[in-house]
């Protein structure tokens, strides 16, 4: 591993100042499950690594605030998977957090890091898209809230500005009851990256939200407000074209070694149909 300067600020303002001063030469370090790998293989060569884990505002926390569940940037996947409120109100997010990596990875990897790393295969991204999460970012110009659908650009690239640090992810508690589920396809059970990762949510107004990742440069959200997909009695001939429209933005790469584009496209529909059925069932049970 090449050497770098290590900073461990305890104040958020210090971290913002460092990040603003060093720009792309600085990298934030939270769980490190992505960054340390890249430091070692040389694909990231920052001059400064800013460890954010000792900043008070970044400490692990899951709290309720103004109609939202607020997940602090230092919160790791294990905590989200085990959190009662997350499991009750945002079960698809808890399910996604529970399948990221292995126990060792989940004990270290943060939700904020998963989002900022902007991997197309990020398992938590589809659930965050379905739940309409917002990314809370603090920067030189103050605090802003970025809707998650406007946050991802492509692998490793987000709409964060220079000097901005994600301090939390906010999930608005759904106004209408929702049934939702996260599903994924991997090469092996246990510890693997997803060939397709997908979340579907259906609410009492008949709105279906379906989001998926690992099938293109960024995770994608599709919404059906017609009520057709959410209606188990709707005929397949009517459902088919609406269901298919959800997947128009899927563009899996032919270069990925995990699965071929044809396989991903096929599994996307299989998982989509499966998740839709479970989401409808879960809504009925609420």
């Amino acid at each position, binding site marked *: 591993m090449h050497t770098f300067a290590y900073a461990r600020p305890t104040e958020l303002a210090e971290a913002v100042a460092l990040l603003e001063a060093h720009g792309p030469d600085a990298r934030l370090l939270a769980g490190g499950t992505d960054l340390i790998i890249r430091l070692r293989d040389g694909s990231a060569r920052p001059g400064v690594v800013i460890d954010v884990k000792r900043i008070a505002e970044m400490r692990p926390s899951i709290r309720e605030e103004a109609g939202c569940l607020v997940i602090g940037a230092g919160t790791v996947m294990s905590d989200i998977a085990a959190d009662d409120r997350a499991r009750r109100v945002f079960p698809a997010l808890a399910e996604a957090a529970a399948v990221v990596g292995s*126990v060792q990875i989940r004990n270290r990897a943060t939700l904020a890091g998963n989002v900022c790393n902007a991997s197309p295969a990020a398992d938590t991204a589809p659930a965050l898209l379905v739940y309409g999460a917002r990314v809370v970012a603090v920067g030189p110009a103050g605090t802003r809230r970025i809707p998650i659908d406007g946050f991802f650009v492509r692998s490793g690239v987000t709409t964060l500005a220079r000097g901005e640090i994600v301090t939390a992810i906010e999930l608005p508690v759904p106004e209408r009851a929702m049934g939702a589920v996260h599903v994924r396809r991997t090469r092996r059970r246990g510890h693997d990256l997803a060939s397709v990762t997908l979340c579907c949510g259906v609410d009492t107004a008949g709105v279906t939200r379906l989001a998926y990742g690992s099938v293109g440069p960024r995770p994608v959200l599709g919404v059906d407000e017609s009520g057709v997909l959410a209606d188990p009695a709707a005929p397949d001939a009517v459902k088919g074209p609406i269901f298919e429209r959800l997947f128009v933005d899927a563009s899996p790469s032919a270069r990925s070694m995990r699965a071929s584009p044809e396989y991903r496209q096929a599994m996307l529909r299989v998982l989509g149909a499966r998740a839709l059925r479970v989401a409808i069932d879960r809504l009925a049970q609420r």
Partner: protein
Amino acid sequence: MSASAAMLPIELTVNGQRRAIEVAVHHTLLDVLRDDLGLTGTKECCLVGECGACTVILDGRTVDSCLVLAVEADGLEITTVEGLAADQGLSLLQQAFLDKGAVQCGFCIPGQLVSAHALLADNPHPTVPEIQEGLAGNLCRCGCYQQISDAVLATADGAGR
């Protein structure tokens, strides 16, 4: 605070012992445990957080020590495989690994033991699927998964560890 380069002093509690050392900022906890502290039970293998050979317990939770900088562990408590047994002997879990034939080449075993130890601390009576999920981050290329699972089950059934 300005950024610091090269070497930094840190304090760790490793297997109950306080250690004040100076570490290179780009060295991982794995590097420091093995090369600076001589605790070679923790193994280096994939270096990408997939195999679990370098698993240690950091402030009560298992982590891949190849993905943690030593400076990140400043002030924290670490348990390595050398710290699993209370005295010079073996823990019940370690003995069960031997009794069930879970150890072939042995390279993955320190990581398996640390993960299994942490699993049983959280969940004293795991089911087989819970054991499989709990140890999914520890690969065994000899393929002793069945015997490892049996050893964890046998320990869970025993009276304490």
